Each structure stands twice: as C-alpha cells, then as structure tokens.
C-alpha cells in the first residue's frame, strides 16, 4: 500500500517570490503535510476495530485551509479524496466557519451533502494555533455497518437513500473536546454493530488528534503566517504544473460511452456519455446525454462523478505534482442533475461510489486513447465486487456485519500488462486476508481463492487477471451483493480484446448444480440483491472480472505468451485463438 511506503516528493522549485522560503524548505513543508496525512492513516489502521479499516484501508486523510481548500492528502482511497473536497466545503458552507471551536469534531455522511455514499463517514476537526484558525484536519472512512436495511449497507435493491443507512448532516460529535453523548447514542442505537462503530470512530478521532499535534509542531517552528503563505505557494505550484501537463495533451473534443448494466430493480441498462474537451490548459468533462438516474443504487452523486474524473486525470499526469487544491483547478465537470452521474434526492447511491465511479474513471481513459495512447489504460474489472454479509455470531450471540470487496484485473497499458486482482481503480484498498476473514466472522469457510486463467483481455499488453473465491456457509447468514461487469465486458483499447466478465453463483446445500441468485432466489438482478438468507452447507462462488487488453494481441511478444501459458495465466487454446500462438 503506497500510503505506508509513500515516497517523498522533490518539487524542483526555483525559489519563492511570495514567502521568502527557499525551495528546500517549501519541499520540506509539503512533505511534512503529506506525511502527516499518511500518519493519520497509519493511526486508523493500528487502532480501529473493523477489517475494512485495519486490513482494507478503506479511508483517506486530508488537510484543508479555513476556506476548504485542500492543502495535502495521502495516497489512500482516490474516490474519497475527491469527494472529501465537496464534503468539507459543504460542511463549512452549511455550518459557517465561525461555528468551530478548538476541540470540536464534526461528523457527516449525507450523500446529498457531498459524501460519496452513506457508509462513508467524514470527521473534521479545526486546528487553532495562537488563537487563530489555521485550517482543518479531516478523514473519511467506510464504516462496515451503517444501519442500512441489510447488514453491511450497500443493499443491491435499495430504492431510496434512506434504505442505505442512518443519514447524518454535519453534526458535532465532539464539542470543545467533550463527547456529544446524544449524537453518540443516536448513532450507536442505529448501527447493528455499535461496538465496532465506537472503536472505528475513536480511531478516526485519534487520527485527527495526531494530525492536529503535528500541525502545531510545524506552526511552532515557522508560524501561522509563513505556513499559510507556503501553502498558497504550494497550491500555485500544483496548479501551474497540472496546467502544463494538460497543455501537453492535444487540444480536442474526445468522446466515450459506457454503460451500467442494470440497477437491481429492473433489467434495463444505464448508458453514460462523456464528452471531454481539452482546451489549452483546461479540461472539461461533460456528461450531458447520460441516462436519467436509476431507481436502484447505481447512481453517482455529483461529488463522486467529479472525484472519478479527478482520479483519471491524476493517473494521467505527473505523480510528483503536489496533491493539493491546485491539482483540481484546471478540471471542470459537468453532470446534469437527475442523471446517473448526478442523481437527486432521495435516490439510492451506494453503488455509485463503488461501481459507477470506476466506470467514469475508465471512460476518461477511453476518451483519451487517441490523444495520449502512451498514457492511457484499458478498462479495469470495474466493480468493487461488494459482497455484504452479517448475522448472529453463534460464538457469542452478538451481531456482526462485514463489507467485503474483491480485486479485479486492471487494464493493460503501454509497456505493461494489467495488474492481477487489485481492488478497482477508485478504491486503492486491500482485500481481507483469508485468515482474518475466517477468524473475525463465523459465516464462511474459504475453500478456494485463485486467479482465473484467460480472464485478462488479450492484447500486446494483456489485461490483468480476475479471480475467483469459493465460500462455504458455516452458520446462518444474510448476504447482499452489488456487483457489475457481469453483462458488459471490460473493454480493451487500441485493438486490445475485452476482459472476462464476473459473476456470482450459489449452490444450495445438498444440491449439485450452481445457480444464479435469480434462479435460486428469484432476485431481479443476478448481481445486485439484498437480504438473502443462506444456510450452513450452502456455497457461494464469486468470480471477479479481468481487465481489458491494450494493443493488438498479434503484436504481443511471443516469449510473453509462452510465459503466460507456463504460468497458467493463459491456456494453450486461448493462446492459439487470441494471440495466434503456435508454440
């Protein structure tokens, strides 16, 4: 995980006209802010209760100035890093900056106030130094149990946001350093696993406390005025460098279309259209023409769509640019209200952040494949593969719930094959190890966990492999799912082939054949459903999609094809059919 081993940046500055700070000091300040964000994440990883925190690292950590401009971030979850800009600015606008006092912590998870989806809870703490408000430290994290209609949230057949968990507008869970007991009581009464929520919230607070302490150290050395000026300068540097990167992309209007295959409520698909304009040093991503918002939970709020576009542009540009507000200024996102890329209240949104988000990021790559073929990547598996489950733990009678996600194959790119079974491009998370999965939860035995041969799209640079997990139910459990790429292929680019689709099947105890959940339980969608009760002996098979291929497979180096066969990544038959390999 890059968050733990993040590299230091050298800004390659030529000196400062504004601050009087030399380039070395500016670089040190930038790296100090970034490493503070990284340490915030480590604090959460080390002190939280749930595996989605301490194994999957499904959280992000950011520092803001008093106007809500991002000063620094660490390399955690890209979709959260983009949306937190909107969550924080909404909070400051709604509450007003004067509402904050030292020791306050504001909590917020409302998607219709900028949160990515209901499980993602943002905490925001002001940092006062020498009596002045310097800025805010913030984190956002995916709670494994938000009090939705089914355990773990992300109900695949939700039709309103109210079914996706307890909604919290910006509220002070701490006021001047003291817990607001009433807020705590309401939340803990609404989550199925209050002890886990309590522990994870405390981990988030500890992370904020650490960041506040670190900022005081920095401000003690340099003073508020100097650091503010340095931050302004770092933002200007980031904007200047990002604009230079965009200027290097040929001007033009680039278009791409993709589709969300169904919404859990009906079998209709939801097309999305992108018209990407590169004009000198600005980018406008226009989603006009995309489908109306869905009835089911595949809708993206505006912040998710914008975040997915930011994610793509950051992937395509110089990774040494300071990651602050300046990176985002050249990027404009147009998403008409009432569409699948900017849904309106009270549409359900859970899968917008897990499924539609990676699709949007991929669409930017798809649109730019002609303009900058050397930098884009084919489609990834494009699903976070959310598989939610919960029930009563027979070991102690307590409730448990878990949000489980899987890796997918990533697309091939110039010079390299796609990654195998890595959590999709919007998440940058880790999977839950089998040992942790089986130890923490009584529901399943993992029989098998493997890469799927031939799942990577053929190409000069092959798509990464998807995988398969086979689970046997060991105690009564309620499951839900919200997956994609079961009907629509992960596409290849520049004559590369498509990756394999995924799937989820069930085999009831005592039966011989695998069935879809439509066949076994009458769900509307084979991939999006909620509240299905499984019994001991039932089995679930989860297949994750591969990535698309890059370039003509006939051009693939023959030694690489031979190695793929030897490694079991590609079968001989497919090597012959897809690559023309006669070895």
């Amino acid at each position, binding site marked *: 995980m890059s968050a733990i081993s993040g590299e230091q940046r050298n800004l390659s500055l030529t000196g400062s006209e504004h601050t009087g700070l030399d380039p070395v000091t500016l670089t040190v300040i930038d790296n100090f802010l970034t490493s503070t964000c990284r340490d915030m994440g480590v604090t959460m990883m080390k002190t939280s209760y749930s595996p989605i925190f301490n194994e999957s690292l499904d959280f992000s950590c950011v520092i803001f100035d008093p106007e809500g401009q991002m000063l620094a971030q660490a390399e955690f979850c890209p979709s959260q890093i983009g949306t937190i800009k909107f969550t924080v600015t909404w909070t400051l606008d709604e509450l007003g900056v004067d509402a904050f006092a030292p020791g306050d912590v504001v909590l917020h998870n409302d998607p219709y106030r900028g949160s990515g989806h209901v499980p993602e809870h943002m905490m925001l703490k002001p940092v006062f130094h020498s009596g002045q408000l310097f800025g805010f430290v913030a984190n956002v994290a995916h709670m494994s149990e938000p009090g939705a209609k089914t355990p773990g949230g992300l109900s695949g057949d939700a039709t309103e946001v109210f079914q996706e968990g307890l909604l919290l507008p910006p509220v002070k869970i701490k006021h001047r350093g003291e817990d607001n007991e009433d807020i705590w009581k309401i939340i803990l009464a609404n989550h199925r696993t209050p002890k886990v929520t309590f522990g994870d919230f405390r981990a988030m607070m500890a992370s904020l406390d650490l960041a506040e302490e670190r900022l005081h150290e920095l401000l003690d050395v340099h003073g508020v005025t100097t650091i503010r000026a340095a931050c302004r300068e770092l933002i200007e540097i980031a904007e200047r460098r990002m604009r230079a990167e965009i200027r290097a992309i040929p001007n033009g209007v680039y278009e791409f279309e993709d589709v969300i295959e169904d919404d859990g409520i009906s079998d209709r698909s939801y097309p999305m259209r992108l018209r990407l304009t590169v004009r000198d040093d600005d980018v406008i991503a226009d989603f006009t023409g995309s489908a109306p918002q869905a009835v089911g939970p595949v809708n993206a709020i*505006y912040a998710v769509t914008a975040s997915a576009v930011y994610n793509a542009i950051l992937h395509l540009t110089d990774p040494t640019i300071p990651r602050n507000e300046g990176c985002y200024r050249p990027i404009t996102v147009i998403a008409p209200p009432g569409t699948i890329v900017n849904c309106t209240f009270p549409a359900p949104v859970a899968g917008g952040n897990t499924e539609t988000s990676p699709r949007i990021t991929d669409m930017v790559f798809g649109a730019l494949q002609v303009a900058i073929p050397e930098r884009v990547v084919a489609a990834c598996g494009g699903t976070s593969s959310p598989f939610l489950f919960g029930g009563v733990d027979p070991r102690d009678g307590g409730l448990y719930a878990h949000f489980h996600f899987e890796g997918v194959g990533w697309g091939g790119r110039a010079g390299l094959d796609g990654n195998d079974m890595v959590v999709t491009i919007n998440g940058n998370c880790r999977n839950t190890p089998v040992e942790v999965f089986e130890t923490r939860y009584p529901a399943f035995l993992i029989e098998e966990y493997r890469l799927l041969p031939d799942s990577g799209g053929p190409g000069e640079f092959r798509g990464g492999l998807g995988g398969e997990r086979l689970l046997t139910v060991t105690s009564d459990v309620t499951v839900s799912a919200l997956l994609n790429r079961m009907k629509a292929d992960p596409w290849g680019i520049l004559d590369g082939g498509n990756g394999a689709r995924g799937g989820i099947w069930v085999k009831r105890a005592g039966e011989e054949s695998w069935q879809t959940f439509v066949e076994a339980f009458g769900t509307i969608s084979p991939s999006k459903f909620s509240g299905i009760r499984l019994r001991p002996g039932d089995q679930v098979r989860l297949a994750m999609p591969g990535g698309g291929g890059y370039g003509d497979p006939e051009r693939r180096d023959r030694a690489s094809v031979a190695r793929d066969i030897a490694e079991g990544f590609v079968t001989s038959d497919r090597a012959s059919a897809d690559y023309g390999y006669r070895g």
Partner: protein
Amino acid sequence: MNVDDGRAESDSGADIASQSGAWITPPISYVDPRRRFCAFCGRPIARRFWRVSRGGGEGIFCDLAHARLDTTYPRSTTPRLDDLESN
C-alpha cells in the same frame, strides 16, 4: 435571505462585469431537502451561490468561473443515450 450586493467579488471574473449579479446566502433549511444546482456544471449548491440576471432570466452558479464558462462553453446538443435507445 442574506444578499451580498452586486458585482462580482474581487477575486476573479473580470469577464463577469457585463453581467449584473449577486452572491446570495439563503438560510439553511432542515425541513426542505431540495437542492439548488449550478446552471453550468450541475453541482448541488450547499448554500451560497452567485445569481446573475441576463436576457430576461436569471441563473445561479456555484462560482463566478462557472457563470463565465456558461457563456462560452459550447453545450452538447446530443440527446440522452437512453432516449436514443427507446426511439
């Protein structure tokens, strides 16, 4: 309703001078969950917005830059993909 009068604030938007407008800061409502949206980008507006009058109508924007872009960006006129499908 609070109205910060008039012309674009000093931080940006020289091109906006041709449009009269005002920053509007309505009170927060916790009994009406409906949102306003930027007429250019579609972003839901938390509270404060830039309102311009032009051509007999008015538009609200999340910031001055979007009010400016709204006058120069060539809007897509393509129909929604699902409309195409259903025809």
